[in-house]
């Protein structure tokens, strides 16, 4: 509390008002935070015990994003690099070190189209791992 406030009564009032406001902000933000956390936990998005570890390690084909590189997608889904290269007919020499969005631009496709093609190829691999 700044020493410029000389009146001790006023100083005490300001201190208590500050304390009440701050405690209120703390309580409300904690309530909102815990609520959001609980909702995420119920939806299974939080790593719980070790038996749930694989759930947070893996992603689903629907979680593939345009910024992801093919190397990352291959690693996460355990696919051999040649699989997506053949399925999507990729001729770029930078493969697999190229993002889905960058390849979509090269192939004059929209990001959504590239995501759909990749997700479909990944889904068919996960159904039949040795195509």
């Amino acid at each position, binding site marked *: *509390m700044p020493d410029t406030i000389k009146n001790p009564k006023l100083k005490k009032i300001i*201190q208590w008002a*500050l*304390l009440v406001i*701050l*405690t209120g*902000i*703390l309580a409300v*933000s*904690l309530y*909102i*935070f815990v609520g*959001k*956390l609980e909702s*995420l936990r119920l*939806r299974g*998005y*939080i*790593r719980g015990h070790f038996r749930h570890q694989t*759930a*947070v*390690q*893996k*992603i689903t084909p629907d*979680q593939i*994003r*345009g*910024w*992801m*590189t093919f*190397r*990352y997608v291959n*690693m*996460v889904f355990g696919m051999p690099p040649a699989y997506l290269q053949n399925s999507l007919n990729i001729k770029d020499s930078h493969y697999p*070190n190229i*993002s889905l*969005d*960058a390849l979509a631009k090269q192939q004059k496709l929209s990001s959504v189209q590239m995501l759909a093609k990749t997700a479909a190829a990944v889904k068919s691999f996960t159904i039949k791992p040795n195509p």
Partner: protein
Amino acid sequence: MLATLLSYVLLYKYPAIFVITFFGAFALPLPSGSVLMAASAFAVQGYMSFPLVLLTGIAGNMAGDSSGYWLVRRYGLKVLDKMRLGGFFSKNRLDGARNQIDKHPILTIYFSRFMTGIAPAVNVVSGITRLPYKRYLLFECLGEITECSCFCAIGYIFGSNWEYVSQLSGGFWVIILAGMLTTFVIGGMIFKKR
């Protein structure tokens, strides 16, 4: 912007993390916290090493902060003089500001690391007032270790679901800040009574 940065992290791994956190700490408004969270999630999936992600994040942040500090310390007043603003920063004012930071280093340097917009400003003030570097570095280092550990822990706990929980980080820092200020006020009231 985050999407582009994440592509770079997947392509260039640790050097990309270092560059992003460096410029994020230096002054550019980059989402380095979200990048660290995502990189930790990639580490959980086995794409990167978790300790290296954490160490690179801390190193990048510290290097960015220190660069800002030294740049302002060396050239800050000269630039201000050239802009004819040097008169505003008289010796008395600079000494007063330095004494305030020196008196409350935890409140000013340590906790400012958690607030992306405020940390570069504190680096500038610390540099321009010529706060001893060792003292600045100690609290800056502790702050960055805590901040990076928090972001990396979130990425580690939530793994591939980090995208869903990155929305929580805003609320998290409000709790930290409100808790810190409440403690400060309560502490002030208790110690004044004694």
